């Protein structure tokens, strides 16, 4: 008898890749984050903080060995898409990513974290109204797509804050805002944190940029020299406070501070802070027009 092999459609192929990538990032931290944690661990001198760093490393080992999500809170799933205008599956991408979340939830397994607001019911699928959350950027002359997957856990989402300052408050006001947020709410967000700061015009513009900032690599710098200088000043200043891993005090507080910025209205400075916890689970994948792919965030990753 003839066997009929049904070739998966392009959409099915991409759904499968994105489902496996989504589940994968819950189990392994990206290279920049694990390198930074190893550095902080090696530099730490306080016994209590060392004990905590050791546990974190042991946990990541165990997650790898047992092939399990490393933290039980696998978050709300967010995708940040930079899609070429000529990417062949542009119109299908929204459905593809929703199906990928559904599949990853079963395969991960991921904890059920999508609660419909007002109905106040957990959907049990990690999908819901506008969830997974998609953020779009269209790149005119490109036929591929670069997608960042992020698991926004509860603890590390809680410190999130945005505010519009008067220009008189200046970057001094931005500094105070960042420090207030981190010392008040950062302690429970599983430090050492990656702190994202958005400097912009209105609240939602700054908020989006602050989230984009924690998608940027640990140790990378803003292209503007003043912004880059401020990243270093904030990072060093926060580390001087010595919040330590889990807020138990130690030589550092953060993995870094990343600032993203835009132009602003002359009368306002929008500022926002987003935080990533030590288990900063994000991944970046580049999909080519022929649906071959490269994983940029995790070297040697096999899906």
């Amino acid at each position: 008898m003839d066997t009929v092999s049904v070739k998966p459609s392009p959409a099915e192929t991409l759904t499968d890749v994105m489902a496996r990538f989504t589940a994968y990032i819950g189990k392994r931290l990206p290279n920049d984050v694990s390198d930074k944690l190893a550095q902080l661990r090696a530099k730490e001198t306080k016994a209590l903080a060392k004990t905590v760093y050791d546990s974190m490393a042991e946990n990541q080992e165990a997650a790898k060995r047992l092939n399990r999500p490393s933290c039980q809170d696998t978050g709300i799933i967010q995708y940040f898409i930079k899609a070429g205008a000529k990417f062949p599956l542009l119109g299908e991408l929204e459905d593809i990513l929703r199906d990928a979340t559904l599949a990853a939830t079963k395969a991960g397994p991921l904890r059920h974290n999508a609660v419909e607001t007002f109905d106040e019911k957990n959907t049990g699928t990690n999908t819901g109204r506008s969830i997974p959350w998609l953020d779009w950027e269209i790149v005119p002359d490109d036929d591929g797509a670069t997608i960042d997957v992020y698991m926004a856990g509860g603890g590390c989402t809680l410190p999130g804050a945005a505010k519009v300052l008067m220009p008189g408050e200046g970057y001094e006001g931005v500094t105070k805002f960042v420090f207030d947020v981190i010392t008040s709410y950062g302690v429970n967000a599983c430090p050492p944190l990656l702190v994202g700061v958005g400097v912009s015009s209105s609240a939602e513009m700054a908020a989006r940029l602050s989230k984009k900032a924690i998608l940027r690599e640990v140790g990378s710098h803003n292209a503007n020299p003043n912004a880059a200088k401020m990243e270093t000043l904030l990072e060093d200043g926060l580390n001087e406070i010595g919040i330590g891993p889990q807020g138990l005090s130690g030589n550092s507080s953060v993995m870094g501070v990343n600032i993203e910025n835009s132009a602003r209205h002359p009368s306002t400075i929008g500022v926002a802070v987003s935080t990533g916890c030590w288990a900063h689970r994000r991944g970046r994948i580049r999909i080519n027009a022929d649906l071959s792919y490269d994983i940029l965030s995790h070297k040697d990753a096999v899906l």
Partner: protein
Amino acid sequence: MKKILTTPLSDEDIRDLHIGDVVYLTGRLVTCRDVAHRRLIELKRSLPVDLDRLAILHAGPIVRPLPDDRFEMVSIGPTTSMRMEKFEREFIRQTGVKMIIGKGGMGPETVAGCQEFTAVHAVFPGGCAVLAATQVEEIEGAEWRDLGMPETLWINRVKAFGPLIISIDSHGNNLFADNKATYNERKIPIVERISEQVRFIS
């Protein structure tokens, strides 16, 4: 050397502990979080597990069912303890629990409860859920299953469960409250110093 405590915990065991100490726990550890606290304190229902001299963990684990009503612990990370603050003092009084484990600090009510009834609060490092699961030898029982997987009271037999960092001891000390005061104090001169270097509007 690891300091390992074994349940049932005595008042003497507890009085020996001070904030910042690192210990490990062997014996019986029961998960107990929001709804279980509310049922006991607000709804005045009696707990289906005797917690006298035992330890509880603020956590909502991922558990895999096995045949014959047995279970496997997949992932069991601590959740934010502060949510239980308004119940904990009374909870300690009614149950006789000796060790409360969770994430982050707790407040003055828990400090009072720990002092009055000789108990401690300890933190297990957040985000280390697989490590914790490997320290659970067996799930011995599950009560109040109607609450769903995260809220069920999972009765675990654990071996050298930790590290557990004592954050509230029975002598009235609160590690996180002390730390927070230190951080806020340190912050002021640092913010001033940075402010002088970011006068980009001129």
